[in-house]
C-alpha cells in the first residue's frame, strides 16, 4: 500500500501527520528565536538534559512525558540564570549539564527493565508510535508555544536584538529571556516524539536557518520555517514509510540537504 492510501486508512499515520503539524509550528517559532539569539548550544543542552528527567520518570513509574516537560522547564530556567550571570565558564557549565543530564537518563533507564527500547525511542523519536493521548498533550504544548510567543512577540524580539535597550524601556529582560527559553524547552518535548532528543538541535536550527536566507524579518522567518518544518517532516514521514527507514534521521537529512541547496543557491545569486 502506498503512503497516501495508507494515510487515509491507518490512524497511526494520521496521528503522525498531526504530530508533524504540532512539531512544525512549535519548531518554526522556537527555532527562529534559537537562530536569532545564536543559542543552539543552550537549546541542545536543554534537549539532552531532558533525557535525565525522562529516565527518572520511567524508573519511578510516572509519565515520561511529564518528566520531560518538568526537566525541560527546569533546565530552561537554570540555563537562563547561568547565561544572565555570564562568566567565562558559561560554556563549561552548560556542557556539564548537557552531559550529566543525559548520563542520569541513561543510568535510570539501564536500571529499568526493558530500557533499551525506551532509550532508543527517546533518543531517536518515533513519530509512528504517537498515540491519541500523545496528540492531546502535543497539541496543548504547541498551543502554549503559540500563545506565549504571540503575547510576548515584541518583547522576545527586543530582548533578542538588544537586551539593554529593552531593559532601559522597562521590559523585564531577564524574565522575558527565561520565558523565551521555556518556550524553547516546551518545543524540545514536542520534538522528542518526532525526531528524538539527539536530533532536536538539527531540527530546531535548520528550518530557521534556511528561512533566514529568504526573509529579513523575524516574523517572516517564523512563517517560512513553520512551512519548511512541515514539509521536512512530511517528506521524512513519506520516505521512512516507503523505504522503512528511521523517521527522525530521514527528516534531519532532508532538512540538511534543503539548507545546503538554499545556501548554495543564495551564494550563487549574489
Amino acid at each position, binding site marked *: 500500500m502506498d503512503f497516501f492510501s495508507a494515510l487515509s486508512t491507518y490512524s497511526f499515520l494520521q496521528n503522525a501527520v498531526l504530530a508533524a503539524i504540532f512539531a512544525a509550528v512549535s519548531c518554526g517559532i522556537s527555532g527562529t528565536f534559537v537562530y*536569532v539569539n*545564536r543559542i543552539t548550544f543552550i537549546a541542545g543542552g536543554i534537549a539532552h538534559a531532558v533525557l535525565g528527567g525522562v529516565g527518572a520518570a520511567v524508573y519511578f513509574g510516572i509519565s515520561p512525558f511529564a518528566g520531560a516537560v518538568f526537566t525541560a522547564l527546569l533546565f530552561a530556567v537554570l540555563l537562563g540564570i547561568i547565561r544572565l550571570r555570564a562568566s567565562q565558564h558559561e560554556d563549561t557549565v552548560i556542557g556539564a549539564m548537557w552531559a550529566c543530564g543525559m548520563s542520569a537518563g541513561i543510568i535510570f533507564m539501564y536500571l529499568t527493565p526493558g530500557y533499551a527500547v525506551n532509550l532508543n525511542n527517546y533518543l531517536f523519536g518515533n513519530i509512528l508510535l504517537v498515540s491519541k493521548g500523545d496528540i492531546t498533550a502535543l497539541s496543548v504544548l504547541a498551543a502554549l508555544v503559540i500563545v506565549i510567543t*504571540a*503575547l*510576548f*512577540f*515584541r*518583547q522576545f*524580539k*527586543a530582548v*533578542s*536584538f*538588544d537586551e*539593554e*535597550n*529593552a*531593559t*532601559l*524601556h*522597562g*521590559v*523585564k529582560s531577564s524574565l522575558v529571556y527565561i520565558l523565551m527559553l521555556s518556550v524553547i524547552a516546551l518545543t524540545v518535548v514536542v520534538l522528542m516524539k518526532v525526531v528524538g532528543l539527539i536530533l532536536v538541535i538539527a531540527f530546531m536550527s535548520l528550518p530557521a536557518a534556511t528561512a*533566514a536566507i529568504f*526573509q*529579513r*524579518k*523575524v*516574523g*517572516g*522567518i517564523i512563517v517560512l520555517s513553520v512551512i519548511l518544518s512541515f514539509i521536512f517532516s512530511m517528506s521524512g514521514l513519506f520516505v521512512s514509510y516507503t523505504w522503512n527507514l528511521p523517521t527522525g534521521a530521514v527528516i534531519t537529512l532532508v532538512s540538511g540537504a534543503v539548507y545546503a541547496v538554499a545556501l548554495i543557491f543564495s551564494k550563487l545569486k549574489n
Partner: protein
Amino acid sequence: MGRRIDNNDKNDNNDKRGKILDKPEVINFDKVSFFYGKNEILRDVTFSVKKEDFFAIIGPNGGGKTTILRLMLGFIKPTSGKITVFGEEPGRNFTKIASVPQFSSHDRLFPITVEEVVLQGLIKSTSFLPIYTKSEKEKAADAMKKLGISDRAGARFGDLSGGLKQRTLIARAIASDPEILLLDEPVASVDSSVEKDIYEMLLDMNKKITIVMVSHDIGFVSSFVNKIGCVNKIFVEHNSKDEMCCLEEHHAYSGKTTMIHHKCGI
C-alpha cells in the same frame, strides 16, 4: 557647520552657558566610586548635568567613560556614592532617558529592518502581541524623518553603512521623546563628513534634549558642547573654552600614569 567654530558662535555658546546656570539639575553624581571586581574604575566622581546641557565625557579607553554611562542608565550600581537621575535612582525613568549604544555591539546578521529597530525605542513592559499601534508607527516615522532615513525604513539594519546605523540608533533613542539622550562614542567608526552631520543633528536636538556623550577623541566635540568632563578613574570638569587644557590632559593619558596632571588651575 563651519559656523560653529568661528568667534561669533563662541559667544553664542557663552550666552547659552549663562542661561544654563539657571536650569534644573537632571543628573547628579555625588562622590561615586565603582569597582569592577578588585579593579577600581572610578574614584570619587562628582558632577551634575543640567537641563539642556551638551555634556561630553572625554577620556582614554578603559578610563571609565562607558562605566559612567552605564551607571546613569542603572545597568550597574555604584560601589559607593550616590547617583540621581531626575531626583530618582537610575534605571527607573523608563521614558525620560534614552541611550545610543555603539552600533558595533549588534549582531550584523540579525533579521531586523530599520523601521523595526526604531520601533524598539517605543517598547514597554506592556507591549503585548505582534502589533504596533498607530501612534507608535507615527512616532517611529517621525524619528526616521528627523534623522533622514525614511527611505531606508525597509532596509535590513545589518546591511547599512556605519553612519546610517548610527542614525538609526539615534532615531530609536529619540522616538520615545526622551528628555536626556546618552551617546556612547557616536562618531567612532564613521568618516569625518558623517561625523559633522551627526554632530550638527545632535546640536539641533540639544535645543530640547539634554545630551551626554562619551568620546575618546576631543576632535570636533569641543566646539559643540557646553561642558566637558575628563575621566581617567578620577573626573575633572571644564568649561569648553578651556578645551586646550583638556587637550593637554588628553596627551597625558597616553603616558602610563593614572593621575591626571591638571593644568587649568580651575
